């Protein structure tokens, strides 16, 4: 969702490269650009101003590490600042508190409170093995109570029956009594969406809040929200003690600046993200990852975690040692690589997490690197003799014809694989030299779609 912001910031800071050092002067235009980028991303203006000032202060008179270009230095500073704004760490709901733990969902109309209440309940039931009761005090929106009732049935949560003719405060007090009888661990109270400028509705939620005295009060905010998010968050936190934020609809392409604004103005952390239409599409929020995504560093951490979990370490070490000893990257090694790629879910799964890959046509990429294709290539290598795999240069025309017949493919397919091997070999040589940049250049030589070049 932060793809656009990522692109803009990385293109701006690229302009800074080769300027030697950051000064008040050469950073001025960049800061103005960053300001516009953040505003376009719907980060609230006061937050943007603070943010820019913070960066300016850090940049002026600060030492820049020699190894970094000005662009990298700036990205590093912005990165840290963004993480600060997001509250620094991944927050998990503290469940080591006396039951029943009362959680209340508040926010504007249409921010996604009811859906999120059910998603959160499902998470607590499935992962934490808790007994959860859902309660709706939304007596305003037609069929809102029924909506929560249906969702509760779907996910196996208890549901406290309420009617839209009841007073919200009364519903809460009866639900609390009921929860003691039913021995619920957690009660989640869904409230009606309301405008923060609607005094009578805000008075109503204050009453509900007092009656419920929740341990957690989540402000639910649409990731597409604009400049006004800061005002609604402010108004709600003046009336209630907001303890956390849930950001919804993040599976869209909004830049999500509201996430920054709201966590800044409430001083509270984002706990969860709503990430899709399905009832278990809720995730913990990772400030570091989100900040990295904003800055064009991609979701590198998740990628690293995934690779660590799936890559065969022994195989990789064997390859690394082999290359270190100056040995060649042969077709056995290529086969290992192809097999690992299948294990990681193909190229598109990897590309999703790489920096600046947002613009790629994933369909085209996956077509080229889909599982079928990968398996076919492995099939070609399997049709070779051990000698051919060790010494690919020995593969001549008649050998190619034999391999093609053996693998049931055309000579062109064999040629393609051989070409790919040569490119990979070149790339591995460069990588063993430790130069990432060269590796990227090596990648561009491969038959990748234009977006990656």
């Amino acid at each position: 969702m932060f793809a656009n912001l990522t692109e803009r910031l990385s293109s701006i800071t690229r302009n800074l490269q080769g300027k030697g050092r950051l000064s008040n002067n050469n950073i001025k235009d960049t800061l103005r650009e960053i300001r516009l980028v953040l505003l376009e991303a719907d980060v609230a203006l006061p937050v943007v101003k603070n943010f820019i000032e913070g960066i300016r202060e850090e940049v002026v008179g600060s030492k820049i590490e020699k190894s970094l270009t000005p662009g990298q230095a700036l990205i590093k500073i912005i990165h840290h600042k963004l993480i600060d704004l997001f509250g620094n760490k991944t927050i998990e709901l503290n469940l080591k508190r006396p039951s029943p733990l009362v959680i209340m969902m508040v926010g504007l109309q249409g921010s996604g409170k009811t859906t999120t209440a059910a998603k959160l309940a499902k998470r607590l039931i499935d992962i934490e093995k808790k007994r959860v009761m859902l309660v709706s005090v939304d007596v305003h929106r037609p069929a809102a109570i029924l909506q929560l009732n249906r969702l509760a049935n779907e996910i196996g949560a208890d549901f406290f029956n309420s009617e839209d003719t009841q007073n919200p405060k009364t519903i809460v007090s009866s639900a609390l009594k009921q929860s003691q009888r039913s021995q619920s661990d957690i009660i989640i109270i869904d409230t009606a969406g309301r405008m923060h400028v609607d005094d009578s509705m805000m008075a109503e939620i204050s009453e509900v809040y007092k009656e419920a005295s929740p341990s957690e009060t989540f402000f639910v905010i649409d990731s597409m929200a604009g400049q006004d998010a800061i005002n609604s968050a402010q108004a709600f936190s003046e009336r209630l003690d907001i303890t956390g934020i849930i950001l919804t609809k993040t599976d869209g392409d909004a830049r999500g600046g509201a996430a920054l604004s709201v966590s800044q103005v409430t001083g509270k952390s984002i706990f969860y993200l709503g990430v899709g239409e399905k009832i278990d599409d809720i995730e913990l929020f990772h400030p570091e990852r989100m900040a990295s995504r904003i800055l064009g560093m991609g979701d590198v951490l998740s990628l690293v975690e995934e690779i660590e979990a799936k890559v065969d370490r022994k195989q990789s070490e064997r390859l690394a040692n082999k290359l270190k000893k100056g040995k060649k990257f042969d077709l056995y090694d290529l086969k290992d690589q192809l097999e690992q790629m299948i294990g990681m879910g193909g190229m598109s799964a990897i590309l999703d997490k790489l920096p600046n890959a947002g613009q790629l046509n994933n369909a085209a990429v996956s077509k080229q690197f889909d599982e079928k294709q990968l398996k076919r290539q492995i099939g070609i290598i399997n049709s070779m003799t051990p000698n051919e795999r060790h010494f690919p240069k020995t593969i001549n025309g008649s050998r190619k014809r034999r391999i093609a017949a053996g693998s049931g493919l055309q000579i062109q397919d064999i040629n393609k694989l051989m070409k790919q091997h040569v490119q990979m070999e070149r790339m591995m040589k460069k990588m063993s030299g430790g130069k990432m940049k060269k590796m990227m250049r090596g990648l561009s030589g491969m038959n990748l779609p234009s977006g990656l070049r």
Partner: protein
Amino acid sequence: MTNEHNDIDDKPKNFFSRLTSALKGKKDVLKNNLVNILTTNKINEDLLEEIETELIIADIGVHTTQKIINQLKEKRKKNSKKNEDLKHNIRDIMLSILEPVSTPLIIKNNDDPFVILMIGVNGAGKTTSIGKLSRYFKDQNHSVILAAGDTFRAAAIEQLQVWGQRNKIEVISQETGADPGAVIFDAHASAKAKKINVLLADTAGRLHTQTGLMDELVKIKKILNKQSDAAPHEVMLVLDASLGQNALIQAEKFNEALGITGLIVTKLDGSAKGGIVLSIADKLKIPIRFIGIGEKLEDMQVFNRHDYVNALLNLPQNHQNN
């Protein structure tokens, strides 16, 4: 609907004061800051940058804001230096952006029902808008029927049925999980047989990035088109005024997929100004038909650019501008 909230405003205020008070909000940035800006004498780069900032805070967006600022500079060169003029200049620029999109929806009475397909992202306010539109069309002596095309969200059908009961109109529905195309097809057949003037078709909220769900809408549009060449007569995108710049992308994507013919801007009773409609008007020229300013049945008004801009700039509402 038995709650104090809905009974407090027992005397509905007239539209002009309502829109003004609705758009004002508590922290009226444009009101306070822009007035301050405009009472200083000089117009220089700093002043323009301040104005730029205030326009951005109203969610107008960087691109359209630049356009307004540039036009403002042009006008200043030609005209006088008085501050009121500056304010009126901004107003005139905004009005000219909104002029091509200020065409109200007109229902033509044919044998075929006039079909309005309501679309938008999750939580935009489609179902509530249908409830309020039903009332609006009934007040204009049109007969109305509703199609419960949101078969995905839990209790969305029942939510629409409540609006049907409030308006005493029929709601065609099937069970949750049914094919929305089939529901809307049935509703169209029913409307045609009963010679009903207006069919309002609800659909499930969907993000414009969800290609499968966007295809579903295209299919629904095709189904309607097979029933009658002119149907759907209106593809209405419902936009939440509190959304930021993504609303423009939304409008673009829904427009690409379906060809939007009208907009409803909802939730203008908060403190958000919905300034993104200026960007959408500027870029896509899609008519803005209605604005939603509350949860009551009558809280749907025909869009009027003069009232909107005056409220945005806190200028007095002028009835003659209609």
